[in-house]
């Protein structure tokens, strides 16, 4: 369980960055460095698979989408712009967006099923499936510091893959209220988690 150790230097020689520096690894990937991509995989595969599976739920589809996302990282690494956010945030955005797109493209058929399934995601379930307990605990604590409406809005939207309009009707709250609660919630989460910006 040491992603750093798994990154062979191979032909990249002395220019290989500290393996934990995902942004530097991505720059190497953009130049076609397979060893760097191997290292990137080790760093991001678990969170990518985790968030994709949480949104999609179906294990086989989740695996397929995870593969698509990681391949997208390989294909479009040159599009990563360190000036616009961290490498982790970029990869997670690709993952989450693709998972959500997949869910919405099949949502018509299974709308009812997802409505029942999605509505009961309790925030503390976030903690259960995971191994990296420190991070998990911190996120759990910060989610716990939100108001109930903020927390439900965030978990339904981010983990459930719902639009704010769907969240509003699930919670029986005006869409405008949900919109503002989502923003307030993320700002509080950001500050609570001490995300550098």
């Amino acid at each position: 369980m040491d992603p750093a150790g798994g990154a062979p230097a191979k032909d990249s020689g002395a220019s290989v960055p500290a393996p934990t520096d995902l942004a530097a690894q991505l720059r190497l990937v953009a130049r076609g460095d397979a060893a760097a991509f191997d290292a990137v995989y080790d760093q991001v595969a678990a969170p990518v698979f985790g968030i994709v599976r949480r949104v999609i739920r179906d294990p086989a589809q989740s695996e397929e989408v995870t593969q698509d996302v990681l391949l997208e990282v390989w294909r479009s690494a040159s599009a990563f712009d360190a000036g616009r956010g961290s490498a982790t945030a970029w990869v997670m955005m690709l993952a989450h967006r693709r998972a959500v797109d997949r869910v919405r493209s099949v949502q018509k058929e299974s709308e009812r099923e997802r409505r029942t399934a999605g509505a009961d995601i309790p925030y503390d379930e976030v903690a259960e499936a995971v191994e990296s307990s420190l991070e998990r605990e911190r996120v759990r604590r910060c989610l716990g510091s939100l108001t109930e409406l903020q927390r439900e809005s965030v978990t339904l939207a981010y983990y459930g893959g719902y639009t704010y309009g769907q969240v509003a009707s699930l919670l029986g709250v005006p869409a405008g209220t949900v919109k503002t609660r989502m923003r307030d919630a993320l700002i509080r989460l950001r500050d609570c988690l001490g995300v550098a910006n």
Partner: protein
Amino acid sequence: MKARDQDLHTLAGAYAMDAISAPDRARFERHLAGCQECAREIASLREATARLAAAAAVPPPAGLKERVLAAAAATRQQPPAGRPAAVPLWRRRRRLIVTAGAAAAAVLLGAAVVSGISDGSMRDQLSQAQASSQQIAAVLTAGDATMMTGTVRGGGTVTIVMSHSRHALVFTAADLRPLPGSRGYELWLIGPAGDRPVTMLPPGRHDMTGPVVASGLRSGDHLALTAEPAGGTARPTTPMMLDVAL
């Protein structure tokens, strides 16, 4: 404007969590492009959502890594942005057409106002112009709108924006050679469906003619221009001065 921007801005949280419909996403991204402060806020909110993803981490199935690395080895990478290939061609074409469309609309309005003042039937001219400009807008904003230019034998250039999905095109001409009063330019659609007269072109103003909308466009059609008796004819009687495959 202020209120609208404010309203858009509240979408920041929903956008950062992808909790937004595709049209809203596109609208917000247009807003983002012109708002650095918003872009910074989105970036910081994305850091927070990335932590939510990290908290959901689960070891991926065995064998996935092998498949991903093998697939990557067989997949061509995108060139860095900024190279010409990074901007889809159709986007640039659309932008060009919108500019051309705005110019055509300005010409149309100018023509209507000038003629209205001079012959005293301004209201008719304007309502005609409005109906026509709606048709023009429909063609110019069509997803498949394509712009072409051509040269007229005997003098002048034409600009055509056509949309097969709208079955119509917009035609404008510049510097057409003036014809004697007894004759005029007639526009035709010629193709497998037969030769169809579109319209007699109105007299040019300030060396500009049109815009004129030709509807009933079918695949395989050509656009043609001939000089005919002022009242128009049912089929071309003189050599074509312009022939553009559409």
